[in-house]
C-alpha cells in the first residue's frame, strides 16, 4: 500500500499555514526595524524581563495554577463518581457533563457576567435575604471562577477515561489483602490514575494561562494577563516585534509544562510529542 502521496496536500498545507507563520513569529521576535533596514536583536526579550512584564507573567501563572488546583480538587471526585458503577444511567451522566462544554465559551463566560453584577441575580438574591450586596464581578476571584467554570471538564474527562480502564481485580486484590478504602485509593487507584491527572492538569493550565477573554470580561480590564498583553501589542499598540517575543515566551512556558508533564507519563502510546 504505497499511498504516501495522499498526505502531500496536507504536508504542503501544514508547511504554509503552521510552519511558516511560526517562523514569522520567531523572525519578528528577533528583529527590529531601523532606518538602515532590519537588524537582529534580543532587545524584545530583554524588555520582557522588566518587572512590569514579569509581574504580568507571574499573575497569569498564579491565576492559572489556582484554577488548575481548584479544578483538580473539584474534578477528581466527580471523575470517580462518573467512573464508578454506582449509577445506572452512567452514559447519560457523562453526556450531560460534556454538553455545557460544547457551548461557546464566550457565552459561558458571559453568563457569569450577568450573575455576578451588582444588580445581578446573586446580589438580588442577597438583598432579598436582607444582606448587603457583594462586589463580585471585576475581581481576581471572578477571573478564577470563569476559568474553573470553563475548564473543569478538561480536568474531569481525562481522569474519568483513565479511571474507567483500571482493572477492577487490582482493587479487589488489595481489598482481599486487607487494605481499607483509603489505602486502596492512596496505594492503587490514585497512582494508576496519574496519567489522567497529569493530562487534566495540562489541559486546564494551558488554556487558562493563555486566555485574554476571561480576564477581559470578568476582570474588567484590571487584571492584565499575558494573553491580554499579547493581544494589546498586536491589536492596540501595533508593536509586533514585542508581541512576537511575548508569544515565544508563552509558547516556551507551554512546551516546558507539557514536557515536564509527559516526562512523568508512563503509558505513552508512541504517538506523542516527546
Amino acid at each position, binding site marked *: 500500500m504505497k499511498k504516501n502521496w495522499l498526505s502531500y496536500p496536507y504536508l504542503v498545507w501544514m508547511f504554509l499555514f503552521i510552519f511558516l507563520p511560526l517562523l514569522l513569529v520567531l523572525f519578528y521576535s528577533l528583529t527590529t526595524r531601523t532606518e538602515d533596514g532590519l537588524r537582529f536583536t534580543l532587545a524584545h526579550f530583554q524588555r520582557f524581563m522588566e518587572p*512590569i*512584564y514579569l*509581574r*504580568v507573567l507571574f*499573575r497569569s501563572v498564579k491565576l492559572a495554577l489556582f484554577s488548575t488546583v481548584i479544578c483538580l480538587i473539584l474534578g477528581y471526585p466527580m471523575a470517580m463518581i462518573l467512573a464508578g458503577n454506582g449509577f445506572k444511567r452512567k452514559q447519560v451522566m457523562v453526556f450531560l457533563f460534556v454538553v455545557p462544554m460544547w457551548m461557546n465559551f464566550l457565552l459561558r463566560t458571559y453568563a457569569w457576567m450577568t450573575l455576578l*453584577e*451588582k*444588580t445581578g441575580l446573586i446580589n438580588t438574591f442577597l438583598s432579598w435575604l436582607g444582606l448587603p450586596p457583594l*462586589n463580585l*464581578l*471585576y475581581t481576581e476571584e471572578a477571573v478564577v471562577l470563569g476559568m474553573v467554570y470553563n475548564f473543569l471538564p478538561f480536568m474531569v474527562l481525562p481522569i474519568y477515561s483513565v479511571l474507567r480502564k483500571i482493572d477492577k481485580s487490582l482493587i479487589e486484590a488489595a481489598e482481599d489483602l486487607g487494605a481499607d478504602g483509603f489505602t486502596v485509593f492512596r496505594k492503587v487507584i490514585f497512582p494508576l490514575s496519574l496519567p489522567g491527572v497529569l493530562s487534566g492538569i495540562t489541559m486546564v493550565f494551558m488554556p487558562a494561562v493563555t486566555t485574554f477573554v476571561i480576564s477581559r470580561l470578568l*476582570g*474588567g*480590564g*484590571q487584571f*492584565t494577563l499575558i494573553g491580554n*498583553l499579547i493581544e*494589546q501589542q*498586536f*491589536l*492596540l*499598540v*501595533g508593536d509586533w516585534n514585542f508581541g512576537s517575543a511575548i508569544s515565544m515566551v508563552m509558547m516556551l512556558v507551554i512546551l516546558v509544562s507539557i514536557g515536564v508533564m509527559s516526562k512523568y507519563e508512563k503509558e505513552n502510546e508512541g504517538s506523542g510529542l516527546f
Partner: protein
Amino acid sequence: MSKKSRLLLAAVLLTAVALTLSSCGRDKRVVLNVYNWGDYIDESVIDLFEKTYNIKVNYDTFSTNEDMYVKIKSGGADYDVLFPSDYTIERMIKEDMLHKLDFNNIPNYKYIADRFKNLDYDPENEYSVPYMWGTVGILYNKTMVDEPVTSWRILWDEKYSKQILMLDSQRDSIGVALKMLGYDMNTRNLEELEAAKQALIQQKPLVLAYVGDDVKDKMVAGEAALAVVWSGDAVFMKRENPDLEYALPKEGSNLWVDAMVIPKTSKHKAEAELFINFMCDPEIAFKNADYIGYSSPHTEVVIMLDPELVADKAAYPSEEDLVNYDIFKDLGDYLKVYDRIWTEVKSH
C-alpha cells in the same frame, strides 16, 4: 459508504457550493467599506444610502482610535471611510495615510459650523469633515453621590471605593489624571507624566473596572456611582436613567472632534466622498445626532434638534464653558511613554 452518509455528504457539499456561489455572484454593486465607532450611527441611514445611490455598504465598528489605527496601518484591511478622532487624524496626516478630499464633491460641507473648521489637527481643512464633537466629563448617579461634583478629585475619593468606572483608553485616563493635577493633557513633561502615573496607580484600588462601551450599560443599570464618560454617551444615559447627571470638571478636560476621512488604501474615493456628503445632509445628520445623542457640528441640525437638548450644557456647552479644554494632539514619539505608563497602571 452507506446511502445515508452519502446523502449527508452530498447535502453538505451542495449547501457549501450554493452558499459560496450566492455570496460571490449576487452583488455587482460597488462596495463601500465604512469603519466607525460602535453605536455611532442610526443604522437606517445606511439603508437609505444604499437605496439612494445603489452602493452596498459594508459597515464595521471599532472601539478605540488605537484599535482602528493599527488595523489601517498594518494594511490588513481596506476601508473607504473612517471616523477617527482629532489626534489620530493628525497622526494619520503626518504619516501620509489619508487622501485629500475633493470638497467639490462634498457641497454639504457648508453646513459645518465655522468653529469646527481649520482646527489644529487639520489646519487647512483638507482631509477631514467633522462628524460629532463633545467633551469628557464625569457622569454620576445622584442617588449615590450627594455632594456637588465639580472636580476630577472626586474620582480619588475613598468614599467611592469600587464605585468608580474609568475609561480603558490610555489617552483619556492619563488625561484625566493630568488635568486633576493641573497639567496640560498633551504634556510631554516626564515629571508631570510620572505624577499622573502615580496618581492612577494610587487610584486603582478604588476603581471598579476600566471599561469601554459597557460604561453605558453599567451606569444605566446602577452598577457604579461615578464614571468618566464622553458627553454624547452621557446624554444617552441620562435619557435612559434620570438619576444620572453629567458634570464638566472645573480643572478643564478634553474637547474632541470625530471626523470623517478617507484612507489612502481606499479604492472608491468618489463613492466615499459621496457617503461623507450624504452624512452631512441636514436630514441625515439630524437623524444621526438625534439617535446617538452626541453633539453635532452641523448648523442646521442644531436648529432642528429639541431645544431642551441644545440648552443642556452636557450636550452643547458654550465656548465660555470650555476654557481649559484641550483638544488632544498627536504625541509622536511620546506615545511610547504614554503607552508604557498605561501598561504599568494596568498591570500593577
